[in-house]
């Protein structure tokens, strides 16, 4: 405090540095005019311009002025503070200044990029610079506080992205909680037969990683579980995980599956979630033979014991390990972690939303995910591609962009459909020798080996028809079409409308955000795009970070992604988490609230308003005080304080009033 006061006594020396940002700023803002303007503002001792202020020579200009004693506080007029505030703060600190004697004027994102008129842009830039100068004069030296980072990590979602992130961290010696909603990990990738473009067997590359997760001493795997509450902040999250009862003790079950054979249901009656409903399971089941953990689960919705209470419980009798426990209750586990990786994945587009493609009306119209199960050797048909009646198709049509690149459904490209359609075309040809027709808008095959795979398919005699499909119908117009499905589409390369009779239609459904993305993002305090994809901190420079420190993204929950990209992102998210853990602490922005005891009347208004219970009350003094470790720096209490006793570092009333004055008064 003493330091701060002595600072106020001296006359402030403000340095203003205006950035050209190449031509990003200077092509609409007259930088020289703004510098001229700034040099005449009160307390400004130095005003300079430079091509790239954020570059080393740019920073050096500021540092030299600080070292020469010309300036003791800095205004940089350049891009958004969300972009380069840390850069310049560090530069000031390196030159011996206090990093918080600094203010940025955002004349790129808020001016030059959104304004065409040069005069108007220059005027607006001047106003923002004046505001920053007005405000920085009132800045005080502040110190960042450090809090320790809990070394454990929570990974939410056990698809390939979550698995990879968990393994990377666990292999680095960190303790990981992997939470998966379904009874098994594996996600979508576990359902696929082959992966493009290499045609690797999906199970062969995935299941070893799944068992590694199960066996890893550093990974606590909680399947059939959901995160229900998240508290705290970077380095110190408190998370509640709900473990749903599976009615089979995970510790005792060895996965012999005798219980499933013993069930009073002699045959499966419930559509299998894992097989997209193409096969039937019993009330006690494992999703698929390589499920991890290989522990049976009882579905109380269909189990006779839960429905009637009259089942003889042969499953319980047959279990030698006595693992079946009908009295199992939901459990809430509380854990503490320092960082969280969200890898909650996607869902596929509901094809019945496009009525004219006949999904749900014609039995031989399948979604691509269903066909993935059909071609899978462990799937409902043992890898045979057969029609609903059991016969092999002679002609198959694959319709691209179902639920993608369509203003009626989703505008975006789902990125994976072209490639998986090519893969399915190859597999259909290989297994059935049927004629395959691909109806596409554009072939999008950017990726290593992807275009080559497309070339290969062109040589495999697959028919490519460029144009959007109008409808799938069973209304035959000639003998050849009788009893078949007819795909009506415009062939834009030939310039005519075609009718192609096929036996099977595969809808290349796009990727959509999980239906509960809104609940999830609220729980983790992050943002979503319009489409429901979780929002990264910066699309290029911080693609796995979020606006909430310590929470990272991996895989398709951030946007449609194929397996290589999901894995790459999972690795990146894991290394971000590792960087946090290895540093051991995080520095918190010192924008916390504080109480001026002399003005505090003890009304406690602030206490009721703080969502973090950071304001405490000293009864003996009848004054409020702020716990800096709990305060997150929103400033809501400051605005509520009727006597102005509460203030927020970096956002004091006085600073904001001056900023308002600056923004309006000079230009």
């Amino acid at each position, binding site marked *: 405090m003493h330091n701060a006061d002595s600072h106020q006594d001296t006359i402030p020396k403000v340095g203003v540095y205006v950035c050209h940002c190449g031509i990003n700023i200077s092509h609409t803002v007259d930088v020289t005019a703004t510098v001229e303007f700034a040099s005449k503002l009160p307390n400004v001792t130095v005003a300079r311009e430079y091509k790239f202020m954020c570059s080393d020579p740019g920073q050096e200009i500021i540092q030299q002025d600080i070292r020469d004693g010309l300036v003791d506080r800095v205004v940089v007029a350049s891009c958004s503070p969300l972009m380069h505030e840390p850069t310049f703060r560090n530069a000031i600190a390196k030159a011996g200044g206090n990093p918080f004697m600094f203010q940025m004027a955002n004349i790129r*994102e808020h001016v030059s990029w*959104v304004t065409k008129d040069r005069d108007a842009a220059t005027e607006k830039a001047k106003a923002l610079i004046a505001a920053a100068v007005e405000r920085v004069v009132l800045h005080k030296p502040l110190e960042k506080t450090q809090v320790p980072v809990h070394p454990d990590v929570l990974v939410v979602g056990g698809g390939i992205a979550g698995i990879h992130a968990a393994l990377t961290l666990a292999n680095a010696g960190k303790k990981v909680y992997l939470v998966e909603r379904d009874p098994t990990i594996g996600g979508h990738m576990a359902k696929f037969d082959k992966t493009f473009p290499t045609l690797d067997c999906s199970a062969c590359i995935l299941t070893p990683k799944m068992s590694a997760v199960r066996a890893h001493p550093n990974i606590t795997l909680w399947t059939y579980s959901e995160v229900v509450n998240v508290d705290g902040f970077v380095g110190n999250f408190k998370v509640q995980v709900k473990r749903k009862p599976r009615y089979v003790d995970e510790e005792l079950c060895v996965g012999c599956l005798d219980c499933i054979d013993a069930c009073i249901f002699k045959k499966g009656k419930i559509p299998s979630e894992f097989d997209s409903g193409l096969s039937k399971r019993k009330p006690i089941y494992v999703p698929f033979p390589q499920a991890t953990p290989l522990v049976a689960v009882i579905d109380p919705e269909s189990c006779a014991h839960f429905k009637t209470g009259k089942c003889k419980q042969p499953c319980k009798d047959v279990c030698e390990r006595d693992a079946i426990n009908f009295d199992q209750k939901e459990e809430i586990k509380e854990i503490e972690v320092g960082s969280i990786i969200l890898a909650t994945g996607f869902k596929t587009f509901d094809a019945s939303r496009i009525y004219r493609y006949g999904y749900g009306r014609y039995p031989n119209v399948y979604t691509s995910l269903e066909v993935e199960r059909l071609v899978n050797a462990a799937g409902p048909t043992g890898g045979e591609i057969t029609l609903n009646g059991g016969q092999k198709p002679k002609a198959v049509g694959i319709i691209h962009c179902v639920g993608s690149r369509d203003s009626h459904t989703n505008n975006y490209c789902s990125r994976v459909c072209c490639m998986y359609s090519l893969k399915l075309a190859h597999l259909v040809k290989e297994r059935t020798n049927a004629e395959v027709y691909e109806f596409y808008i554009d072939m999008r095959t950017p990726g290593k080996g992807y275009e080559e795979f497309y070339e290969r398919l062109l040589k495999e005699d697959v028919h490519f028809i460029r144009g959007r499909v109008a409808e799938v119908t069973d209304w035959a117009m000639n003998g050849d079409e009788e009893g078949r499905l007819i795909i009506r589409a415009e062939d834009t390369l030939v310039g005519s409308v075609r009718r192609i009779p096929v036996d099977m239609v595969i809808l290349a459904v796009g990727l959509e955000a999980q239906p509960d993305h809104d609940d999830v993002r609220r729980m983790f305090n992050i943002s979503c795009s319009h489409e429901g994809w979780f929002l990264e901190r910066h699309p290029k420079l911080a693609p796995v970070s979020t606006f909430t420190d310590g929470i990272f993204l991996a895989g398709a929950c951030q946007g449609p992604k194929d397996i290589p990209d999901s894995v790459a992102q999972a690795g990146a998210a894991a290394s971000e988490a590792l960087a946090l853990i290895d540093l051991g602490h995080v520095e918190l922005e010192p924008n916390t609230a504080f109480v001026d005891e002399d003005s505090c009347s003890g009304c406690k208004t602030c206490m009721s308003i703080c*969502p973090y219970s950071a304001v405490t009350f000293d009864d003996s003094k009848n004054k409020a005080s702020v716990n800096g470790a709990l305060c997150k720096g*929103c400033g*809501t209490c400051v*605005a509520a304080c009727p006597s102005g006793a509460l203030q927020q570092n970096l956002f004091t009333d006085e600073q904001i009033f001056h900023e*308002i*004055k600056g923004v*309006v*008064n000079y230009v």
Partner: protein
Amino acid sequence: MSENEINYEQFEPRIVAFFCNWCTYTAADLAGTARMQYAPNVRVVRVMCSGRLDPQFVLSALREGADGVLIGGCHPGDCHYQEGNYKALRRFTLLKSLLKSMGINEERVRLEWIAASEGDKVQRVINEMTEQLRKLGPLNLESTQLPTQAAAPPILEEKIAAHQGGTHE
């Protein structure tokens, strides 16, 4: 109305905006990155949360010469600090009645929920508000007439506002 002499087409209103760091300020950055062009009349003051917004800031901006004030926060339920935006909404409701009693057209002050992904909404809202203020003309506080009808006592207004804010949640 002496304001008839003002050429509304030419009048460039000055708008001070208070944007929260996490949603609306980020959205304004996004509008910039996407090069969405909009009226240059808004000057943004960044606050960490719309809950930081003291109604005095709005009054101060109007007194200093702004013709309108725009407040931007996260959508209900999305606040980075849990519920600061609800507090902003309550104060905004109260502030509007205060402005009315001061004879200031309440349309000069606007509260918008703009999410980090809604760069297009920043563009639309700023353009709309600039047009709106062009029609209203400059804010001339000296000649502003107090409404003849006495406004409800502030304490009652506060209760109403708190109640409205409460049910809104």
